[in-house]
Structures are given as structure tokens and as C-alpha cells.
């Protein structure tokens, strides 16, 4: 059902939705590019052929600004703004690839990996895995700590399952449910480190307000929400006792 949508990934994901405004010209890593006013720096970078790595951004959803891997440097500005939430301005000079940015991105990736199943870091395919490959960060130096790796898999829905251990709390599923489908069946429960994607009041997806439209599965960048059809032999850790 969703295989044809997966194919869309082969196209360019500009990270944020296109805008309709006057032409604005800027440079990204020295490459001049012209986009509509109101567009994000991330979109301009992708249009310039200098795409910035991203996790919480996709052009089917409004920018969110949570994953912090899409940081860039902008001449004349302090700090490292997120490219997804920074609107373009005429004459802006954006840099997407500096040693300092690489260092910060690597630092953020380490944090993600410190709460991600180690056995799934290599060999998987997802947007997260693409970012792991691009940044070259596949391990972390935090040692064992608090994590969500033992959270039980929700396989109540006949078509897809949710493995919270692989969730990076980017809220793409929650936002897809709201912005794409208008169902509002998903939310983040709790806050801070305890933040967790849940359906309705933390019940199995099948019992919740979810209408099984699949928008969340399509939006998920880590295969935390994934089609069951991909796992004909049964999902590896669907039963924690066998994991």
C-alpha cells in the first residue's frame, strides 16, 4: 500500500514546503540560488544542490526545528541557526559544511545514538541511516544510560507496527496525523526525556483514534513506525521476551 510512496523518497525532499513569493537570491556554499520569499534556507540549500542533513524536516510538513542536525552558518549572524526554520533573505551567504558544523552535528548524532538500539545502527535503511552515513557517526561515547530500548512494540494495528525503541521523538508522525490527515490521533505523552509518541491516551494504536491511514508510517524517518509487510517472518523484537 505504501510502497509507491516509498518511491517518492528517490525524489528530492526539500525539507520544507514550497512557498509562493517574490524571488529571493542567496548563496549556499558559494552556489547562487533563487527561491521564493518565505522559503527556508533548507529548501534553498536543496535547490542549490547543497542539501543539508535533516531528520525532523520533510517537505510534506511545516518546519518544526527539533532535530538540530540541519544547523548552518550564515555570514554576519551569530550561532548556528537551524536551516529548516530560518527564512531566506536576499544576499544571504549560507555555509552548510564547515568543520564546526560537522562537530556539532556529530554531537547531536551521538545523542540520538545514545538512545537507539545499537544492533540497528548499521545495515538499516531509513532517513536516520542516511544521516548516519552522511555524518559518519555510528557510535557514541556516553556509555550505558537511561534509555527507551525496552519499551514494548505496539503491533496492534494489522498493517504497521510501532517500535518506540527506534523513535527519535521528531514528531513527524504526530504532525503528519494533524497536518496531512487531520485526525489528531497521535500526541507526545509527557515531556523532556520521558517524551513518548502515543496514540490517543497511550493505548494500542488499534484501540485509539487512529484511522490506519498510514500517514505516520510514511512520515517516520527511522522505521520506528513501519509496515508489517516488510517483516514477513515476524518483527524481530515484537515479543520482548524473545528479543
Amino acid at each position, binding site marked *: 500500500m505504501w510502497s509507491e510512496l516509498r518511491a517518492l523518497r528517490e525524489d528530492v525532499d526539500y525539507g520544507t514546503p514550497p512557498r509562493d513569493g517574490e524571488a529571493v537570491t542567496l548563496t549556499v556554499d558559494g552556489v547562487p540560488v533563487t527561491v521564493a520569499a518565505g522559503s527556508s534556507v533548507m529548501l534553498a540549500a536543496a535547490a542549490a544542490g547543497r542539501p543539508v542533513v535533516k531528520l525532523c524536516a520533510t517537505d510534506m510538513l511545516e518546519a518544526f526545528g527539533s532535530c538540530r542536525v540541519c544547523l548552518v552558518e550564515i555570514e554576519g549572524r551569530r550561532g548556528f541557526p537551524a536551516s529548516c526554520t530560518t527564512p531566506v533573505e536576499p544576499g544571504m551567504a549560507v555555509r552548510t559544511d564547515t568543520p564546526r558544523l560537522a562537530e556539532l552535528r556529530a554531537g547531536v548524532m551521538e545523542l540520538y545514538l545514545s538512545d537507539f538500539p545499537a544492533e540497528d545502527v548499521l545495515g538499516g535503511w531509513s532517513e536516520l541511516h542516511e544521516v548516519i552515513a552522511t555524518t559518519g557517526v555510528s557510535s557514541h561515547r556516553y556509555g550505558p544510560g537511561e534509555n527507551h530500548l525496552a519499551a514494548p512494540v505496539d503491533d496492534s494495528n494489522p498493517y504497521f507496527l510501532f517500535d518506540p525503541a527506534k523513535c527519535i521523538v521528531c514528531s513527524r508522525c504526530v504532525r503528519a496525523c494533524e497536518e496531512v490527515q487531520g485526525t489528531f490521533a497521535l500526541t*507526545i*505523552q*509527557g515531556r523532556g526525556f520521558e517524551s513518548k509518541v502515543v496514540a490517543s491516551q497511550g493505548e494500542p494504536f488499534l484501540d485509539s483514534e487512529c484511522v490506519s491511514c*498510514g500517514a505516520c508510517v510514511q512520515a517516520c524517518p527511522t522505521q520506528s513506525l513501519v509496515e508489517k509487510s516488510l517483516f514477513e517472518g515476524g518483527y524481530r523484537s515484537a515479543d520482548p521476551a524473545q528479543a
Partner: protein
Amino acid sequence: MKDAVLPRPSRRRVEADHPPYDVTAVAAVLERWAGTPGNLLPVLHDVQAALGHVPPGCVAQIARALNRSRAEVHGVISFYHDFRRQPAGRHVLKVCQAESCQATGGRALTARLEQLLGCGLGETSADGAVTLEAVYCLGNCACSPAMMLDGRLFGRVTEAAAERLLAEARQDA
């Protein structure tokens, strides 16, 4: 994507699974705040004031009245630490954990309260008398350490004074 290809899975009604609660009281709260923009927090505060906590069962009632989903309401309830999803003890004791109180013996005070009540922060004593909660600043930093018992603020709290207050609170049922 063609949804029609696949049958929509059937689902249980989860609302029925939650324990019963005072539907009329919640309806009165919803009536009071009807039409006020951004009224979810005031509604939740008033529900908690009326029922002592925000019962999971009322989430659907609130969601229907405010034209929001249960997920949205649940997300909000779970974000804010004030909202309790189960009833508290007969008394609620909030003890400050923040820096000004740390500088004046607040850690020892908390440890003593935990010992006296036989429960940790976020828990209720076994006799159901007192729920002990962490709070991060009561604005009473000039008279630290501070705590709040059933909404009443106390400053310069010594372990002896805390012991007296707890003993009084545990006596009246």
C-alpha cells in the same frame, strides 16, 4: 494511496475501560469555560479542583466539548506536572527542591520528610494521608527552605517544624 483497497480495522471502545467519574461535575466545568479561547488549562485546573485529579475517563468528554481529539487532551495533561491522573492522599505536601532551598538545608529536609512519610517524592504515604511532591521554587527564597501543605506556604522550615505539621496533618482524616 488508496485506502479502499484494504478494509479498515475494527476497534474497541476504550472510553468504557476507564473507571467511572463525576460526569456532571466535568460538564459544569466545561459549561463555565465554554467559548473562552484557549480554555483547556482552565478546564483541567477546575476539573482537578472539583475531583482531586483529572480522571482518564473524562478526557473523551473534554475532547468532545472542546472539539479536540483525546490525544491532544492527553498530551496536554501529561505535559504539565500539576495535573494528576490518579487521586492524591488526603493532604498534598510540596517541598521545594530548587537552589535557594538547597543552600539552606532543603535536601536534608526532603530526606527527613521521605523518612517520616515512608515514601519518596511523587508518592503517597501508606496510610493515604499525605502525597509528597517535588516543587521547583515557591518564590519564598528569602525564607528558604520552603514547602507548601494543601496550598499553605511555609518558610524557614526546620525538620522539627515539618515533623509537627505532618503529625497534625496525619491526625485529621
